[in-house]
């Protein structure tokens, strides 16, 4: 009983799994372009059993018929694995009346009680061919003529060269496509005989061409099947008019040929013939405007729209720990030509080449994507450093001006690593000395001192001033010289007079002393003797009275080569006279001193001092 229950449960689960093994897919499909007045089909496809389809309001599109449902399922075993598909399709037939763009809102459907929503659909209704009666008639006529001649007119098949812009800036992407237009003919294939121009003056980037799909397009009043055959992005490399030559294509058309039907096989195989048709896509001229002047520093040719983000692994670290700065430049433009901005790491950082990862996508509007750059550096010395900002300048094609993106600057605080310390302790004696390295040269900076002012006047001296400046001191010096010399001469005269009169004066004083010797005033006598000696020496030796003393006299006499005995006698006489003035001796002493003094003066006179 219990086992039976479990079995039923398992069965239910399995069935459920079968049903819901896949996700529910519910999609709406319709041709993107339709011609007004021609019905078209809108289909809703769901891969599960479903019900309650709620189609949206078709709006201005005419509802003609539907929904017709159809379903198909298939089961296959591959390598013992069962795969089953199931498709349920609802088909509506609609028709557009007026040219324009229409949007169909999503439809809803219920699968197992759950509501699912489809995608919305956009439909462009193209106007019908102009002059419908005439054109239709013409086309049938043409067709019949073609069928007869096997040729195809220019109106029925041609190539167009389509450029997204004709006026661009240097380095701004232009999308060029060669598009085939055909109506009423059947294009089988293109031969290899195509000639695509060189695109000189451009940097070319071909777009990946998937399977060629045809689209309806209303052009010059007619609806054509179109196919884009070739697409490329072009980046003008210089300014001015750049011409693109015409491109040559060759298509193989299948043209029905009306022939006499000989057999049923002829009709089957031979009623069509292949006709090769040369097609020319006309050349175009692109006007490339030069980039405006005033390129900022750090501009490396980037044109487009970019943004920049930056990241740093850390700002606090130890020596010998790596630091990484990541810079990501995102945007659209000539990504391939972007130069990697450089980081000017401070001294003391070991730097490595940045690792650049490019992730570019080429789309119809140009190249877009991201360029991420990783800068790795290892600080080798501790300290506070500032890694200067990374500047990335580009020309913004939308705002038509240069823009500069900046990342950083980053202030790094590098501490001495633990390992570093030990290492240093060991090798402390071997500190690697470095000379101050000259990193660059530049002029010295301007001076900012406040200007000083003065009364304006002559800046250089006049000739007279110059002459006076020399003449005046000269005159003063001459005058001084004259004055001083006269003074000296006068002094010399006095000295000479005293010199000459010395003996006479001394004799006079001595006579006076002789007279006093008889008297009782001893002090007067001695004074007279002393004065006689002193004044004689003073006059004779031209010594000022202030400098008169025995030592001075002795040294001058010595200089004058007077004999030592005489000098000793001078000393003794002067001492005796001085001494006797205060302690008088007897009359004999008086006479003796007088005689000695007289004799001394006589001797000095004889020695011709």
């Amino acid at each position, binding site marked *: 009983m219990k086992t039976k229950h479990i079995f039923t449960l398992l069965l239910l689960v399995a069935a459920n799994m079968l049903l819901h093994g896949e996700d529910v897919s519910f999609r709406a499909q319709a041709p993107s372009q339709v011609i007004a007045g021609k019905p078209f089909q809108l289909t809703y496809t769901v891969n599960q059993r479903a019900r309650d389809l709620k189609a949206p309001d078709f709006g201005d599109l005419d509802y003609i018929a539907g929904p017709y449902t159809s379903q198909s399922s298939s089961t296959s075993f591959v390598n013992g694995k069962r795969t089953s598909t199931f498709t349920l399709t609802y088909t509506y037939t609609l028709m557009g009346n007026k040219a324009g763009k229409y949007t169909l809102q999503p439809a809803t459907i219920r699968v197992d009680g759950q509501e699912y929503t489809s995608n919305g659909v956009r439909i462009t209704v193209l106007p019908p061919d102009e002059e419908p009666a005439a054109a239709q008639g013409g086309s049938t006529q043409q067709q019949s003529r073609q069928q007869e001649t096997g040729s195809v007119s220019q109106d029925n098949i041609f190539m167009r060269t389509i450029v997204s812009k004709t006026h661009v800036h240097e380095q701004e992407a232009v999308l060029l496509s060669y598009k085939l237009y055909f109506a009423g003919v059947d294009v089988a294939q293109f031969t290899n005989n195509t000639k695509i121009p060189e695109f000189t003056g451009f940097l070319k980037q071909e777009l990946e061409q998937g399977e060629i799909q045809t689209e309806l397009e209303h052009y010059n009043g007619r609806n054509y099947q179109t196919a884009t055959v070739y697409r490329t992005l072009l980046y003008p490399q210089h300014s001015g008019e750049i011409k693109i030559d015409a491109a040559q294509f060759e298509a193989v058309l299948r043209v029905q040929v009306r022939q006499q039907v000989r057999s049923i096989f002829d009709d089957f195989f031979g009623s069509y013939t292949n006709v090769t048709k040369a097609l020319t896509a006309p050349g175009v001229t692109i006007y490339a405007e030069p980039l405006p002047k005033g390129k900022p520093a750090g501009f490396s040719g980037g044109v487009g729209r970019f943004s920049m983000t930056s990241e740093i692994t850390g700002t606090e670290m130890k020596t010998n720990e790596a630091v990484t700065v990541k810079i990501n430049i995102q945007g659209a433009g000539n990504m391939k030509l972007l130069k990697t901005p450089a980081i000017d790491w401070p001294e003391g950082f070991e730097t490595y080449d940045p690792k650049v990862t490019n992730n570019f996508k080429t789309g119809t509007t140009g190249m877009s994507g991201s360029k991420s750059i990783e800068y790795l550096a290892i600080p080798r010395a501790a300290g506070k450093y500032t890694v200067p900002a990374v500047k990335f300048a580009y020309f913004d094609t939308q705002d038509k001006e240069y823009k500069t993106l900046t990342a950083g600057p980053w202030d790094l605080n590098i501490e001495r690593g633990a390992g570093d310390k030990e290492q240093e302790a060991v090798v402390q004696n071997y500190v690697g000395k470095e000379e101050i390295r000259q990193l660059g*040269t*530049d*002029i*010295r*900076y*301007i*001076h*900012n*001192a*406040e*200007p*000083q*002012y*003065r*009364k*304006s006047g002559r*800046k*250089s*001296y006049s000739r007279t001033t*110059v002459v006076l*400046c*020399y003449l005046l*001191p*000269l005159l*003063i*010096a001459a005058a*001084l*010289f004259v004055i*001083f*010399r006269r003074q*000296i001469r006068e002094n010399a005269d006095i000295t000479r007079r005293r010199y000459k009169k010395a003996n006479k004066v001394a004799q006079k004083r001595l006579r006076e002393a002789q007279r006093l010797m008889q008297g009782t005033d001893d002090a007067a006598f001695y004074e007279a003797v002393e004065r006689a000696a002193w004044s004689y020496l003073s006059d004779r030796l031209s010594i000022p009275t202030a400098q008169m003393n025995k030592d001075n006299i002795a040294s001058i006499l010595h200089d004058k080569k007077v004999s030592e005995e005489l000098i000793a006698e001078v000393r003794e006489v002067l001492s005796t006279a001085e001494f006797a003035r205060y302690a008088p001796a007897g009359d004999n002493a008086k006479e003796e001193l007088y005689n000695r003094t007289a004799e001394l003066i006589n001797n000095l006179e004889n020695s011709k001092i």
Partner: protein
Amino acid sequence: MKLLIIILSTLFAQANEQYAAGRYAEAADNYETCLSQQTEDGTEMTDESRAEVLYNLGNARFKQGELAQAILAYERSLRLNPGNKDARYNLEFARSRIIDDIADNRTFFFSSWARSMRDRLTENTWFLLSVGLFVIMLAALVVFALARVLWVRKAAFHTAWIALLLSVVSGIDALSLHRRDTERAEAIITQGITNAKSSPDRSGTDLFTLHEGTKVEISETLGEWCNIRVGNNEGWISLQHLERI
């Protein structure tokens, strides 16, 4: 009346700010205005201040890439204040960018040394120095003539002749600087590239090529032309291709 001084000072400060912001062309224009403004109240910038303005102008011109104008400004700045070491350094720096390398065999080492010594002071300083030394010489002579002690006389004599010699040298320097400033014979090539001709005539034979920033000596002028001497070369150049310092 005082207002003008304030305007000048403000203009100078503004130019310095522009220089700091990297707007060298505007800064240079303002420096030029500072230099050309005449004051009405009988005051003017001191030579030192004019030298500073000229130095800054030289820097702005250099940053603009106008080498000849920069060299001119530095030269003029140094004439007003030969003691400005930064101006001398920058002048040498700017000269190192000149294309022409002047080889002059005629100037001996001594004469070039003498010239560089001369350019270290202004004319007035040399003159005052010369007068001062002359006075010292006279004093020494008076002492020499009157002193009776031998060593004093000897010392005075040597002082006198050394002072006289130096006074004469200083006087010559002052005179030479005076002549240089009145004749204004030295000039800087302002044209990017110019050819010296054999005659003061457009059709003259091209003798040699000179580049922007080179210093030449004008020995003679004739109409629109001047005869210049540079190194061992001599030729005629249009006056519009150079500017006197």
